[in-house]
């Protein structure tokens, strides 16, 4: 049964190799079909694995048949637990939505787009399922290589190339940082398997080397995970990438990197860093809050729809980091369900934005003002998505926010929960503001922020006269799944149980190194109280108010602008769009994180 795990990676890779040589002769519908079939296969395999591991414990497949020799891991393992398999299933689901979008009306220019997409899917699934730290790095680099090529899809536009260059430079340096961290911990332990590393590192409390290794690995993966001060590349890449790629970047690629950090922490570093948890928690929660605030404020100051949604992803990424930074099962469960909810809603929003681009050749809020009436279903979906992002029940984000606030309150961080509620309101308010202005044309559009007023469409014809069916069905499907996730108590319990298995290091090590598979069931139902629903409705109302404040800001007194103006201006100036600045910020981040961990944790 564990042999299904490498098949999750092998099937898309075979599809990628199959699609490339026929790039000039294969019609688009055939390559889309092959890609969809491969993706559906992966969904099937990973859901089977998720169910199997939920009832039988962590499934381990040793590549090459190299089982551990008296407890010494000598091969590469795919160590699949419910969180890993569930993540792989979710990745494949979003890739399927992206592939469905390319069925009709999308200019893929040959089969190479689908080939790259399949390689991207294989990389993310491999990253989610693997149990070896260097194998994670290899899949991480494959993700980066595919991401660079896919971002530069609209090669005729110079901005696409600039966005791809920013992505390439920052993520490449990130990969090397991760590799330096891996080298350091290898030098200490001579092991590369996550379980084995954990065993050896746990033998004594963490010293500067272990902390530095942790710092480098975390920093490297945080670049991919769009956490401040490493998030700058994300908005540039999103502004120019084609819609299905934006769906994948925001929906799952960023979150997969955060999963990697959590996995490495729990299996490798958690016992030895036990004496430093206070400082590490402070780091994660602090950075998470900062990222969330920066993302939300910058989102509100954007007029380009995709850039706005990208900054919203940055702020949600900060929220995930804060939840993971609690370092307990409740935080992990809250982050997991929040990732699923956010992925579904954000993907739907991006697809709606893509439709606006193809219908009206623009993503600028001002140019699109009032034109949303011409595509009513799409505008309705966009507005529903905006409300869902704010946390209105019964969509998934409301359930996620309930668990998130509960996890924070349990930990005594009530103030952080309030700040995150505020962040959600601003974030969703920005989306609602654009949605309302585009649909009905009321209020004043956002005037600041980068935006080419007219852009090349992503479709083969000049523009869409009518929205083709995949572009409406994809967001409908995603929002429907979001309603299911938001109301299904069994799903919440499953995620909660999976999170408890995720943070249980002994279970993992026993399964991987000793072949002992045990299952623990933790039944901790989250009761939905009226108070929870009230909080979500309040945040949604705040988001709607924020949207209207944004639309009618000329009518409110200008007293506050000297207070808010200069900081906002300098924040915007930091996002300069040149990768040279981004690398400088990255070095600042490396220095800050390493110094905090190594020196502060003494």
């Amino acid at each position, binding site marked *: 049964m564990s042999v299904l795990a490498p098949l999750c990676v092998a099937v898309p890779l075979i599809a990628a190799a199959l699609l490339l040589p026929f790039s000039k002769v294969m019609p688009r519908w055939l390559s889309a079909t092959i890609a969809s079939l491969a993706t559906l296969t992966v969904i099937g395999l990973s859901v089977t694995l998720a169910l199997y591991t939920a009832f039988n414990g962590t499934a381990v497949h040793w590549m090459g048949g190299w089982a551990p020799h008296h407890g010494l891991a000598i091969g590469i393992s795919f160590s699949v637990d419910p969180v890993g398999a569930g993540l792989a299933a979710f990745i494949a689901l979003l890739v399927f939505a992206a592939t469905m979008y390319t069925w009709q009306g999308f200019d893929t220019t040959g089969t190479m787009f689908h080939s790259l997409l399949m390689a991207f899917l294989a990389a993310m699934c491999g990253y989610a399922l693997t149990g070896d730290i260097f194998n994670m790095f290899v899949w991480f680099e494959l993700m980066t290589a595919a991401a660079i090529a896919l971002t530069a899809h609209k090669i005729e536009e110079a901005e696409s190339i600039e966005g791809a260059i920013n992505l390439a*430079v920052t993520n490449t340096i990130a990969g*090397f940082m991760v590799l330096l961290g891996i*080298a350091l911990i290898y030098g200490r332990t001579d092991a590369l398997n996550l379980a084995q590393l954990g065993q050896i590192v746990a033998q004594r409390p963490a010293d500067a080397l272990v902390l530095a290794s942790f710092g480098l690995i975390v920093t490297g993966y945080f670049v991919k995970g769009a956490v401040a001060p490493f998030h700058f590349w994300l908005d540039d890449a999103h502004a120019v990438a084609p819609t299905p790629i934006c769906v994948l970047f925001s929906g799952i690629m960023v979150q997969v990197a955060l999963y990697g950090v959590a996995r490495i922490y729990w299996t490798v570093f958690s016992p030895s860093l036990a004496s430093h948890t206070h400082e590490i928690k402070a780091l994660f929660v602090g950075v998470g809050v900062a990222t969330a605030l920066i993302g939300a404020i910058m989102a509100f100051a954007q007029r380009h729809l995709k850039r706005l949604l990208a900054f919203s992803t940055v702020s949600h990424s900060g929220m995930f980091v804060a939840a993971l930074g609690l370092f307990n099962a409740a935080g992990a469960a809250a982050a997991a369900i929040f990732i699923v909810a956010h992925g579904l809603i954000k993907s739907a929003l991006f697809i709606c934005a893509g439709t606006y681009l193809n219908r009206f050749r623009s993503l600028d809020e001002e140019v699109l003002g009032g034109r949303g009436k011409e595509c009513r279903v799409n505008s309705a979906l966009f507005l529903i998505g905006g409300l869902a992002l704010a946390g209105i029940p019964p969509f998934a984000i409301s359930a996620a926010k309930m668990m998130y606030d509960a996890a924070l309150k349990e930990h005594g961080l009530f103030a952080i929960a309030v700040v995150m509620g505020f962040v959600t309101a601003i974030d969703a308010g920005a989306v609602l503001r654009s949605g309302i202005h585009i649909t009905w044309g009321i209020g004043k559009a956002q005037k600041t922020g980068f935006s080419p007023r007219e852009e090349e469409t992503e479709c083969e014809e000049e523009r869409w006269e009518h929205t083709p069916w995949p572009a409406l069905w994809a967001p409908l499907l995603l929002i429907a799944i979001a309603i299911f996730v938001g109301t299904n108590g069994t799903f919440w319990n499953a995620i909660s149980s999976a999170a408890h298995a995720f943070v249980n290091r002994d279970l993992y090590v026993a399964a991987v190194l000793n072949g002992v598979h045990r299952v623990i069931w933790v039944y901790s139902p989250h009761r939905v109280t009226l108070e929870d629903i009230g909080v979500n409705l309040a945040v949604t109302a705040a988001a709607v108010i924020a949207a209207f404040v944004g639309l009618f800001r000329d009518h409110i007194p200008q007293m506050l602008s000297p207070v808010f103006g200069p900081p906002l201006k300098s924040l915007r100036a930091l996002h300069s*769009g040149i990768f040279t600045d981004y690398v400088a910020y990255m070095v600042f981040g490396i220095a800050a994180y390493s110094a905090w961990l190594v020196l502060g944790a003494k």
Partner: protein
Amino acid sequence: MSWTLYFPYAVAFWLFFIGCFGVAHSRNLIHTILSLTVVQSSTYILLLSIGFHAKAGAPIFSPANPPGSPSVDPIVQALTLTDIVVGATVTALLLTLTIQIHRRRGTIDPRDLRPMRG
């Protein structure tokens, strides 16, 4: 002197930061790509010097050098091989992007590329 025993590791980190300095101050995209190569070589040096074993040979055995003779670590060598391929591929992709940006904007100076500000 005890610091010489850790000197190669320090060299690796020095290269990393010098490479990043090159990227952060580059005025030409080709220079950026070569600075990334420098960053990459820092990882090679760290990996290979971690695996080094004094007075030991290469991990290639033959009748004259049978298995069991002292040898350096083969695993870091395999990791470095993987790393080299990764670096070469990223270089190829970035060079392609450089060619294309030169065609569109006529310049490969990062400062002259019209950035997406704000």
